[in-house]
């Protein structure tokens, strides 16, 4: 052997140390590493922000040669107004269709009014095929913290998993690691919806109670259990029910209310 034995041992030791470091790092929550993320983001996010901005210009959804700051301000205001209008409309529809739970929804409406929301737009999507995380352009300095709920005009998007000063990473509900405690609006049955690899914008509803009556086109919303998502945020509609030999194993597919492919702007619900 031409290799020095000592060098080999040093190499092995270095490899073991790096491996241990990687294992430790992999077990640290991303949210606890925001200071490192801050530094790393400083390199990439300004350019990514610029590229997203440029992309928006090319797509023609803004005027490039006009007063940008004024338009941005106006745009933010309109976005907020639009979301508020959509939210009011949604609440009205719920109240109309659900007489039995009218009182509950009035309470919910009150609850929503108390929520402070922060508008944001998506500046980065996950670069792999197996994760469904997004990065939004608001962060700690805007009052964003991990576990805050993120919604869009149509419904639930996900929750914040980590933040930097200017950005926040959001785990969407279509991510395979996401699991949301929810309920069917008509029967009030509790179910769990998880992300799937199979189809984009489709969730899998499991833990359906054996005696529950679920039908296609039933609406699914957050149940409020779990401590992250507030109650009553629309998640989607049941599109297919798969019956199995054992009724407790049956599951259903839920089409998300939000079109994640076209998602560009979101609202973050401030907890406090």
């Amino acid at each position, binding site marked *: 052997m031409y290799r020095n034995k000592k060098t080999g041992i040093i190499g092995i030791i270095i*490899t073991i140390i*790096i*491996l241990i470091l*990687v*294992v*430790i*790092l*992999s*077990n*640290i*929550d*991303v949210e606890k*590493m925001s200071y*490192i*993320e801050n530094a*790393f*983001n400083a*390199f*990439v996010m300004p*350019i*990514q922000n610029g*590229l*997203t901005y440029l*992309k928006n210009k090319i797509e023609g959804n803004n005027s490039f040669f006009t007063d940008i700051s004024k338009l941005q301000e106006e745009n933010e205001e309109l976005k907020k107004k639009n979301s508020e209008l959509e939210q009011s409309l949604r609440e009205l529809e719920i109240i109309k269709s659900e007489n039995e739970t009218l009182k509950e929804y009035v309470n919910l409406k009150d609850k929503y009014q108390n929520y402070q929301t922060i508008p944001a737009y998506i500046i*980065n*999507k*996950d*670069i*792999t*095929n*197996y*994760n469904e*995380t997004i*990065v939004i352009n608001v962060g700690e300095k805007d009052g964003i913290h991990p576990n805050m709920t993120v919604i869009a005009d149509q419904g639930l998007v996900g929750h914040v*998993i980590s933040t930097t000063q200017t950005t926040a*990473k959001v*785990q969407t509900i279509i*991510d*395979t*690691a996401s699991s949301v405690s929810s309920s069917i609006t008509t029967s009030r049955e509790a179910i769990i919806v*998880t992300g*799937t*690899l*199979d189809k*984009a914008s489709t969730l*899998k509803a499991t833990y359906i109670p054996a005696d529950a009556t679920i039908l296609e086109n039933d609406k699914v919303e957050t149940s409020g259990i779990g401590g992250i998502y507030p109650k009553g945020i629309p998640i989607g509609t049941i599109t297919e029910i798969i019956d199995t030999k054992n009724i407790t194993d049956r599951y259903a597919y839920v089409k998300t209310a939000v079109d994640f*492919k076209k998602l560009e702007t979101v609202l973050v619900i401030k907890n406090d």
Partner: protein
Amino acid sequence: MKKFLSIIGLIITFFIIYFLQANFFTWFNISGIMPNLFVMFILFIGLFIGKKIGFALGIILGIYLDLLTGKSVGISGLMLGVIGLAGEYLDKNFPKDSRVTMILMTIGATVFYELGEYIFQVLKWNIQVEIFPFIKILLVEIIYNIVLLIILYPLIQKTGNYLEKLFKKKAVLTKYF
């Protein structure tokens, strides 16, 4: 000095790849499935420059990727680090001036990386295993990577040979002895 500039060049290339993945390939994809240029890039470094730089860059850039968009930190670093490390061993056993062996190595590296990432996710987040959707995504990703490799092959060879001369002066043709 040349070596230092080359490393800087590789880091710049990494960022170009990152912006391509985050912008271009989110639009230019095959039924929503993107290629994985990072795997090809680190394999390329391991093959042409050597295991030390391949391993180091794999670990650092992988962790960086995890911090930017991942749900947990470390696994991409580990997988890319191993690919960088394996690059040199593959170089000693297979001719990298053959397009076919390069394609086979890319397939192996892609399978290794994605399988590792997926198994880690299943274990860490306790998610339900979806074998067929996973295989479908993996196959499309492999095909996409192969297509890109074929397109980029002349550039990879030219740049690779230059870097190999620069970093592996003493190791020329040792595999033939």
